[in-house]
Each structure stands twice: as C-alpha cells, then as structure tokens.
C-alpha cells in the first residue's frame, strides 16, 4: 500500500488536523525535531501526540501539530491533561523529506514513552537523518 493511501485512510479515521492553541502555562511535554543530515531544525513536520488507555490499550489522539521554523511544537498538552501513562509521539517523516525532495528509509517515527512523575517536565526530541534517528529524555 502506498504511503499516500495509508495517509488518506488515516485521515478518514482520525479527526481533522487542527493546530492546537493552548493558552496559559507552557506544556509540560515538549519536543524538538532536528534534521541532523542538513544541520537544520526539522520545520514543518506534522506530528501527533497520543495517550494509551490503560484498560483497553487503545490509543487516543490528544494533539496534532506541525513543527515551527525552530523545529518545535509548543502547546502539546496542558498541565491538567498531563496524567501518568504511556504516550506516543508520531512524526510524519516521509512527508517531511518529500517536501525537501528526498526519500527517507523511515516512513514515520513513533516514540513511545512512559510518564510517571507529572511534576517534572519531559522533553522528547527527535534527531533525524534519512537513515538514522535518535531520541532521548531531556527536561
């Protein structure tokens, strides 16, 4: 199945993309995309934040967004909504590289992480090239 077809089907299943506008205190969860192949921020990359239901294991979408010119996406989640659990960040890497006229080995990147202490800040960046990527927990 082509990635375009997969995206079309996903659009039918998931809500329309709506950039979130979070007022108030900054999100306790942040991300930062860096294009390490070109030494630039990974800007204009679509991403989704999901949380897993602990009973059903189903994923619920919390936020959809797009990275800004710094490769960041403020307003991922509010402090009130940031409960302990398993989350995942989905990065639309194929679309990102296609917009640069390149292919990528990874059609998308999902980073699944466990949040235990919601008093802390969590920074989950993605450092990406066409044939590698890395992530770490920062604060």
């Amino acid at each position, binding site marked *: *199945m082509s*990635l375009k077809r*997969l995206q079309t*089907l*996903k659009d039918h299943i998931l809500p329309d993309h709506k950039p979130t506008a979070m007022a108030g205190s900054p999100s306790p969860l942040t991300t930062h995309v860096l294009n390490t192949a070109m030494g630039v921020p990974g800007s204009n990359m679509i991403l989704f934040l999901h949380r897993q239901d602990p009973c059903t294991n189903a994923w619920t979408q919390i936020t959809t967004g797009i990275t800004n010119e710094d490769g960041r996406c403020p307003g991922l989640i509010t402090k009130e909504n940031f409960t302990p659990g*398993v989350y995942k960040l989905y990065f639309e890497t*194929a679309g990102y590289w296609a917009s640069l006229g390149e*292919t990528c*080995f*990874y*059609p*998308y*990147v*999902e*980073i*699944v*992480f*466990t949040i235990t202490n919601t008093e802390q800040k969590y920074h989950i960046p993605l450092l990406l090239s066409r*044939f*590698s*990527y*890395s*992530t*770490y*927990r920062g604060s």
Partner: protein
Amino acid sequence: NSSPPLSIHVLNTGGGIPAIKMDVSLHRLSSELIIWNMLGVGLTDENGCCLGMINREDFTPGMYKVRFETSSYWESLCLTSIHPYIEVVFTIRRPEQRLHLNLLISGTSYYTYIES
C-alpha cells in the same frame, strides 16, 4: 545468495555491552488492511545480534517494522526505561542485498541507524 537479508544488532550503551536475550519481532504492513502481520520472532544472541527472522524470498518491497521488547530486557537487569518498547518502521523499495538495522539503547535514549 542464502545469507539472511536482514540482521539486527542491539547495543546497551548504558552498560557498554551487547543487549543479550532481547525479544524482537518483524512485521510487515498488509496491503489490503491496515494491520501488521508478524513474519518472525527472534532473540538477540551473546553479541546482541539477531539474524534469520526472514528469508530472502519473503523480503519483498513493502513497509516493515521491527519491534524490540525493551521493557522485559531492562527488567531482567533490574533497571527501568522511559521507553516501554521500541518500534522501528522502514520501507523496502527494492530487495536489498543485506540490511543491518542497528539499535543503541540506554534507559533514557535510543539511536537507530541502517547500513545496507
């Protein structure tokens, strides 16, 4: 050429050692439905390597993922990790000669790269 087309190598960078006895599995995205079909399972050996989850004839173009059961691995070392599992999704557009998928893990980070 009967050598396996896909080899996996996992390193525990937190401990500076190969990641031994980690459960891994290989899946391919079905073209009819949006489901993942498991193709094979494996266990990393004393070098952190895993071969033979798929043979050359079956490694056709498509979207694949390797799932690493990192939670169980860290638990066996009485350690925790922020990542309950790691899945690396990749596209094969033409049959590669040989693909090495490398994963370097610590309790708070991971890095993956492909050699072909």
